[in-house]
């Protein structure tokens, strides 16, 4: 991962925060050095738009011409035109200063998150394996005895593990009749059928449910 930041204090913090989150970080302090940066093998670039001597957007254009590496832009000027321009030039996302360390890390992780759908019609969350084509669910190789509604619910949750899914979305995905009122009954039965160590279905206040990867 490459961080391009001219301010010594902020640059130091960014590097420390990202390293603590488990990334290997290289730090360049000025635009001239960044111009010739080697982008090969990088998973992401964090680029501060306010660099001395070079307009950050030019650097962005330069990077985009050479590589498809995701670029996360830091901006202190809270101007829409800047953000739109950055996104048009190929930036993947931006973070507006001031930000908390976890804010930046969350955006980096969101950008690097791999899509869950691994192969065609199969979903895997931890040891949970959902075969959409054959309508089968198994955990650690042991088949789960689920009704079609329960399987649909589990699929709807497993498509985005860790993300809360609204009751309405779950009802739309899995319930033909009864709507949201019978949702809790189905979820409660589904929970009982998930074995120890499998991903858990967590209630999210005000929203619905979320599938959390279980302990392996």
């Amino acid at each position: 991962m490459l961080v391009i930041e001219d301010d010594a204090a902020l640059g130091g913090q960014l590097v420390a925060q990202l390293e603590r989150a488990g990334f290997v970080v290289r730090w360049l302090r000025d635009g001239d050095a960044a111009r010739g940066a080697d982008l090969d093998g990088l998973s992401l670039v964090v680029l501060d738009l306010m660099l001395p001597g070079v307009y950050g957007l030019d650097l962005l254009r330069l990077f985009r011409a050479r590589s498809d590496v995701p670029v996360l832009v830091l901006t202190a000027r809270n101007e829409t035109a800047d953000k739109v321009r950055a996104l048009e030039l190929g930036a993947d996302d931006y973070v507006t200063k001031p930000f908390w360390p976890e804010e930046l890390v969350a955006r980096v992780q969101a950008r690097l998150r791999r899509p869950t759908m691994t192969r065609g019609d199969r979903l895997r969350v931890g040891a949970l394996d959902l075969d959409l084509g054959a309508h089968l669910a198994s955990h650690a190789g042991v088949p789960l005895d689920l009704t079609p509604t329960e399987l649909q619910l589990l699929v709807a949750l497993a498509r985005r593990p860790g993300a809360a899914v609204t009751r309405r979305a779950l009802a739309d995905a899995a319930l033909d009749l009864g709507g949201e009122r019978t949702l809790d009954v189905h979820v409660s039965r589904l929970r009982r059928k998930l074995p120890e160590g499998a991903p858990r279905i967590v209630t999210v206040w005000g929203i619905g449910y979320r599938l959390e990867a279980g302990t392996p």
Partner: protein
Amino acid sequence: MKLRARAALTLLVGIVPLVALLVWGLREVRVRAAVEATSEAVLESLGEPERALCEADPAAFVARSGRGPGPRLRRRVARHVSPLRLAVYDEALRPVTPDAPRLDAAMTAALLRGEASAARREERARGARLVVATRTPWGSGRCAYVVVERPDVRRGRTLLWLNAFGVALATVAIGGLAVGPIVRRIRALTAAVAAGAPLPEGGPDEIGELTRAFAERRDELGRRLAELEARDAALKRFVANTTHDVMLPLTVLHGHLAALEEAARGGDPRTAATLRAAQEEAHYLASLVQNLGVAAKLDAGAPHVVWHDVALVPLVERVVARHARLAAQRGLELAHAVPEAGVTLRGDVTLLEQAVSNLVHNAVRYAEPGGHVAVVLEHAGPERFELRVLDDGPGVPEALLARLGERGFRGDEARTRQPQGLGLGLHIARDVAARLGLTLGFARGDERGLVATLSGPCLPARAAG
């Protein structure tokens, strides 16, 4: 009404009654002249022989031929007017000859008063008639009065009215010609003022004075506007630079505070509490600076709204990430849900993000420890979205709830930092919603707390990224 039409109308309104009066006066004069001429002709043709003839045989006296004055009178009076009817009245004003024209009360009274002649007009189907009664020179006996009925003199009436109409038309035309150059100059002036072009040469008259006054005021306004624009540009630069200069150290401060909190974990609880408070203040300060920037943009008007496609899902994720630390410190669960398909709408990402951020910040600030805040983004139809920010905090009293959505409502509490205060944030959220054509509503939660709902049109779900 245009100047030319107004001038024409004014002239018409002035001229028409004048012409009518003139026509009426002329006709009166001509009628009087005709009456006098008839009367004189009658008197001139009467002498002693005629008196004797009349007393002896009135019918022969008024006959169309013979020795009476009838033929002579006819020849004289009827040179211009014919046919003519003659009759004779006695001294008691009783008709003596058959088929005599009727005398009305006014004529009778005038003749009995001793006047030499009297006349009246009478409208008939075949044109108006004049009846002229003349006292004979002897004025007594059977032939005291000779009455002549003749056509009125109004043969030239149509011609008279045509003349009058012509005069009126000519006056209006001349008026229009006179107003023409004035109208053209005023139009040229209007066009120059509207286009911001150099003003036409004024000339020494009132329009010239108007032109010069315009030019002077325009120059002065231009100077003032240039001054204001320069000042505005300088101020904008200053604010932008200052914001930038403030945001960098504030980011570093955020980082230091976060690191300090981590280092102090498990240590003195007072240190931890102080650090939490410090982070809340830093968070509030950052939000305040952002809000002031947005408020300046909103106050500046429409040109400062940059319209483009805004992806709402990453926006919600950024906002939730921004307030995650504050929520965690307050012991709150801050969760969010977004649709898989994404939501894109036309708007201004900076304004919109600040509005949503303010709603979430508000919910996080007023929720109680152990409480919940949820941010839910959903499609509410094929081309509508709904973004709800829910909390299970104390909520807002019903009376205040109704006012939260009011545009322009900014009580004193907006500037205070009391827990009960509404803060600048909600007002900005409401103003942003109005500016972007979205709806922002507030309601009570199912059991307690507040639900803020931002909704509006979005691009069709399949097109959204």
